[in-house]
């Protein structure tokens, strides 16, 4: 009896497998013909994925626009591998290295140690890391890694200026993803910007503890808006999407509040309630585009710590300025010039911010 | 002459085991036909074949003389075959009428016609003298009544051949009497009945003919008027049955169990044992008679250390074991055949072998330094299986898959083998067939002969009268009287159990 059942099962499997094989063969024959030694650039996302409306997405946009300009194909010329958990970073990076990608980016400082290890194991590979500096045991930058960092404090300062000039309640908020040195650059730059143009303004700052927790972002936003803040700078990746949700809800109920977006121009995300005041754009796409371009030209910036600031067009305020007043915009431009020419240094750490405040008075 | 049911040469095989081997069953129109056999003889398999739950590997089924294929219970129902299951399939929260019409509701304009349903049920109930109130909820009526509801369900569906699966197992003696009357009335109205049972008494009271099966085979079909209980029992067991009697002389030795002024609370914190005194000697069987719920369970649990003693003392072999841990009491010399063998006596998902060492697994020779000696355990299990005639394919078989009688044998084997000074047997033969009862009674008597103390708790007066050297009657938590079984009878015990002492005074 058992045999009979097994036979039925086996037959079923065989039939299905052959059907699948049939379909498969017809397809696979076409795709295997890719040219050898063509330039390939790849990136490994963190667990957020390429559609996180933020960081990973911006990086991928950089690669795709590079591909477009250079006639590379998505999926072969430029490609991303998505990680579903932290332990996937290393195999994903390794895979691309083994497949001889000309450059492989690790998107985010969470991949720092994996990048470092793989760079040391594969000295010939070209790697890039965003928001971190890859170093060896002696704390020296690794020769085959391009470390891409941003002067987020500068961009944050500018949106701080906008917030300081726009707030009616004189209360603004900052929501960060995870409390870290990197996010502190956002926070302190923003606070400095607000205080510079609006010394009376009160600033609430809080960290959600995660980049992928929209529910928490929303809860914190709820508290801040209720306490009277009318603008929140959401610098928290996917967590920031919760801030948008809360702002939109309030807008629907007739209470106008603003969100300042981060990383990308998040104007569209504020629609249709139109809650995005402006966004601090971090041009990860620009940086990736630049580094990839240099690599293709044979000038891979290995061992260098690249800093993208206002000057390099690596950070800034979003191109969409519909909701920003003319006065605010011109003030922003004034400060932008000062920062670029070096007459204004934006604080990055809590200590620098304190000193900055002291000098303001 | 045509039969209501004729099953010819039925064979049903499960992987490796022949449950029914060439069985022929012929039920005449309008008779009560007993299907008689031990647990596991193949009665249920045969009935499941008839009811369409199993397909026979061989053989044919004729219903009212016509050959039929019964693929599922719906076919069976269509042919007028109805089964009154041992475990009722009723919805507690529904009324009797609702339960009966469930699945075949009378409708008026597409809407359930409850009034009509009640009327139909009432009519059926009156016709067969079932005396059921259609409007009562099932949860509010007695088990006996629930069974009648099950009977009504089959009648409502138009069955004229009714199968009763061990219907008396859950009933009180009075309810059994009433059921037999109902069955006779059903037959009087032209129905045919198959009664599955292993109780001789019922067959002789109710049935016209009887088919005996043993180990999957037909033994014989006889008219009840042509046979007697001893012959039938021998046919079922396959050998001469010896009704065990406690014939060893009563020779009490030293006190083994001494209970003084015992007070115990039940789970609701109500006094269930009140100032109870009891002594059991080596070399005697002390039977405790009483109506269920008079403190028997709590008394045993208190002795075994499973229930806290509020007041008083319990001594085993002069060791004070009051409120000691169960393991300590076991080690002091307690053996215990619990009332609920499946819940308390066995780990059903353990193998027979593992169950054989449930209290001794940590001791030499079964274990040393915390490591089990599985070989020794297996050897012991094999020995006990043989010694106590446990019918199991091997010691590795799960206890769950044994029949009730064999499960009980496992427990008895385990407890007796430890050779405890005091053996408590609570309802040791409930639900077992003659062969197993005979065996277990024999073992209890054997223990007595060895000089052990046996405390027997049973609701079956026959059993108590048969086995005990002394009978203690428990009533509302204390021993109302201790009588000599030779000088008493069921009537006197019945009165004592109801709380009346000799001379008619209320205790």
């Amino acid at each position, binding site marked *: 009896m058992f045999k009979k059942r097994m036979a039925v099962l086996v037959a079923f*499997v065989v039939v299905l497998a052959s059907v699948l094989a049939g379909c498969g063969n017809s397809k696979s024959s076409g795709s295997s013909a890719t040219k050898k030694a063509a330039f390939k650039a790849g990136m490994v996302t963190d667990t957020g994925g390429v559609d996180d409306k933020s960081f990973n997405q911006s990086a991928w946009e950089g690669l795709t626009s590079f591909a477009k300009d250079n006639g590379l194909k998505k999926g072969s010329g430029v490609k991303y591998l*998505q990680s579903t958990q932290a*332990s996937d970073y290393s195999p*994903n990076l390794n895979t691309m290295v083994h*497949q001889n990608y000309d450059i492989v980016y690790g998107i985010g400082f*969470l991949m720092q140690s994996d990048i470092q290890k793989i760079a040391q194991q594969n000295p010939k590979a070209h790697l890039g890391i965003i928001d971190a500096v890859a170093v060896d045991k002696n704390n020296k930058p690794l020769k085959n890694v391009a470390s891409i960092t941003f002067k987020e404090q500068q961009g944050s300062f500018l949106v701080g200026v906008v917030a300081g000039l726009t707030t009616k309640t004189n209360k603004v908020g900052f929501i960060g993803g995870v409390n870290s040195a990197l996010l502190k650059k956002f926070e302190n730059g923003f606070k400095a910007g607000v205080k510079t143009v609006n010394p009376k303004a009160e600033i609430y700052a809080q960290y959600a503890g995660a980049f992928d927790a929209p529910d928490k972002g929303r809860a914190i936003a709820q508290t801040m808006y209720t306490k009277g803040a009318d603008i929140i700078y959401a610098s928290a990746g996917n967590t920031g999407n919760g801030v948008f949700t809360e702002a939109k809800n309030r807008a629907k109920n007739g209470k106008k509040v603003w969100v300042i977006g981060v990383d990308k121009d998040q104007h569209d995300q504020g629609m249709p309630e139109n809650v995005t005041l402006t966004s601090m754009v971090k041009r990860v796409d620009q940086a990736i585009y630049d580094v990839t371009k240099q690599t293709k030209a044979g000038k891979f910036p290995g061992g260098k710590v690249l800093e993208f600031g206002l000057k390099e067009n690596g950070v800034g305020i979003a191109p969409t300025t519909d909701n920003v007043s003319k006065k605010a915009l011109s003030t922003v431009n004034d400060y932008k010039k000062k920062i670029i020419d070096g007459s204004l240094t934006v604080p990055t750490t809590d200590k620098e911010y304190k000193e900055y405040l002291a000098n303001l008075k | 002459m045509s039969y209501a049911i004729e099953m010819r040469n039925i064979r049903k095989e499960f992987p490796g085991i022949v449950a029914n081997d060439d069985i022929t069953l012929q039920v005449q129109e309008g008779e009560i036909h007993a299907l008689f056999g031990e647990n596991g003889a193949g009665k249920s398999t045969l009935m499941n074949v008839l009811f369409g739950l199993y397909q026979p590997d061989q053989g044919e089924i004729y219903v009212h003389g016509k050959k039929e294929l019964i693929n599922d219970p719906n076919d069976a129902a269509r042919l007028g075959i109805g089964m009154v299951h041992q475990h009722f399939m009723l919805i507690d929260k529904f009324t009797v009428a609702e339960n009966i019409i469930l699945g075949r509701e009378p409708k008026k304009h597409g809407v359930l016609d409850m009034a009509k349903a009640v009327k139909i049920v009432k009519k059926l109930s009156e016709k067969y003298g079932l005396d059921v109130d259609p409007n009562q909820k099932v949860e509010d009526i007695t088990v006996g009544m629930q069974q009648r509801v099950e009977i009504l369900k089959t009648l409502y569906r138009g069955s004229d051949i009714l199968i009763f699966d061990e219907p008396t197992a859950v009933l009180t003696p009075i309810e059994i009497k009433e059921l037999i009357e109902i069955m006779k009335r059903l037959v009087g109205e032209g129905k045919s009945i198959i009664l599955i049972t292993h109780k001789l008494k019922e067959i002789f009271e109710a049935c016209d003919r009887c088919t005996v099966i043993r180990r999957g085979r037909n033994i014989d079909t006889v008219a009840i008027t042509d046979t007697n209980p001893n012959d039938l029992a021998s046919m079922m067991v396959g050998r001469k049955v010896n009704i065990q009697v406690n014939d060893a002389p009563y020779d009490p030795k030293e006190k083994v169990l001494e209970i003084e002024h015992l007070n115990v609370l039940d789970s609701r914190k109500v006094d269930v044992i009140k100032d109870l005194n009891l002594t059991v000697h080596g070399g005697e069987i002390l039977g405790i008679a009483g109506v269920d719920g008079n403190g028997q369970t709590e008394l045993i649990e208190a002795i075994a250390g499973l229930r806290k003693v509020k007041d008083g003392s319990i001594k085993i072999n002069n060791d004070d074991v009051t409120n000691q841990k*169960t393991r300590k009491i076991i080690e002091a010399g307690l053996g215990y055949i619990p009332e609920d063998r499946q819940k308390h*006596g066995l780990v059903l998902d*353990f193998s027979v072998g593992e169950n054989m060492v449930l209290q001794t697994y940590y001791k030499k020779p079964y274990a040393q330094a915390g490591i089990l000696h599985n070989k020794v355990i297996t050897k012991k299990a094999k020995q006990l299986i043989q010694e106590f005639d446990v019918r199991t394919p091997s010691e590795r078989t799960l206890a769950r898959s044994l029949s009730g009688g064999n499960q009980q044998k496992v427990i008895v084997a385990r407890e007796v083998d430890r050779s405890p000074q005091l053996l408590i047997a609570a309802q040791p033969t409930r639900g077992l067939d003659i062969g197993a009862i005979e065996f277990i009674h024999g073992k209890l008597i054997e223990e007595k002969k060895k000089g052990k103390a046996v405390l027997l708790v049973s609701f079956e007066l026959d059993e108590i009268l048969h086995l005990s050297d002394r009978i203690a009657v428990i009533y509302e938590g204390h021993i109302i009287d201790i009588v000599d079984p030779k000088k008493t009878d069921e009537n006197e015990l019945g009165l004592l159990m109801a709380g009346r002492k000799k001379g008619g005074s209320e205790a």
Partner: protein
Amino acid sequence: MSRILKKINWMTLLIPVVSVILGLLCGAVIMLIIGYNPVLAYQSIVESIFLQPYYGGETIRAMIPLMLAGIAVAFAFRTGLFNIGVEGQLLVGWFASVACAICFDHLPKVILLPMSITAGGAAGALWGFIPGLLKARFKVHEVISTIMMNYIALYTTAYLIKNFLYTEGERTPTIPAAASLASTFLADLTQGSRLHWGFVVAIIAVFAMWFGLWKTTKGYELRAVGFSPDASKYAGMNVSRNIMLSLTFSGIFAGLGGAMEGLGTYQYMTINSAFTGIGFNGIAVALLGLNTPLGVVLSGALFAGLQTGGMTMQSEAGVPVELIQIIIALIIFFVGSGYVIKWAFGRLSRKGHK
């Protein structure tokens, strides 16, 4: 009767196998519908794992915590308890092992490595003991308390790292080499994968579960209590103590799983903002492995293979990694609906007789 039993055993074995096959087939169908090539996808999984040492090594590495988590769940399950808290026990084990390694970094390897592993196990044990105590003393259902303990573990470890062991990159410093399970030998053998000596620990754990449950008196007791607390009580066993013990042992296995991540795979602990998922996958591993030691090894291998292979599937066949998650979910779904499979086979066999 026994034959019926044997039949049931066959059936139970059949369910996981059929579930895996069905899961893969359904995955293939989904790929076809979306327009990917399932043959290429599965081929890339098999080829990478069996032909490329790197992915083979990564698979075994991924197996280590999965096996330990699976053993933890299976062990508790065998004793009648449902340990949903493996995730939390794993996190505290991870933290404790890393913290121990960092705090005592001057000790030599022979002391520090075993000590750090033990610390992980001990932390897991504590995290299992608490729900055990709650159940034994106050009858708090272990499913509820272990879930709560998961959250406590997640936030406690994050807090502790942030305040005491913080370093750049949202994590603890890297552990000293003296506490590391990583091995250049194994890495070289597997083209630089993160395979580490933790697999020895995992194998020992599998053996320990088998030996402990089936060869010792304690295991006998634990299983008896798990199957039937009533009968065990009547046989003189201490049911409460066994419940506590069982969850404690289960916690040890889970804690070791965490230690393997801390001392082997990562060499540090990140501040987790969400659960790692290993503990929950452990439930699936145990379920698919029928809660047997060998079964856990096999299903652990399957899950690890799918996870690692999922990444090559992404890079070779272009199939999104989410699909692997769907396949895993489908397999679990089919195991969970084993009743349906049994029923289907029952139908099949009956039809055969007509």
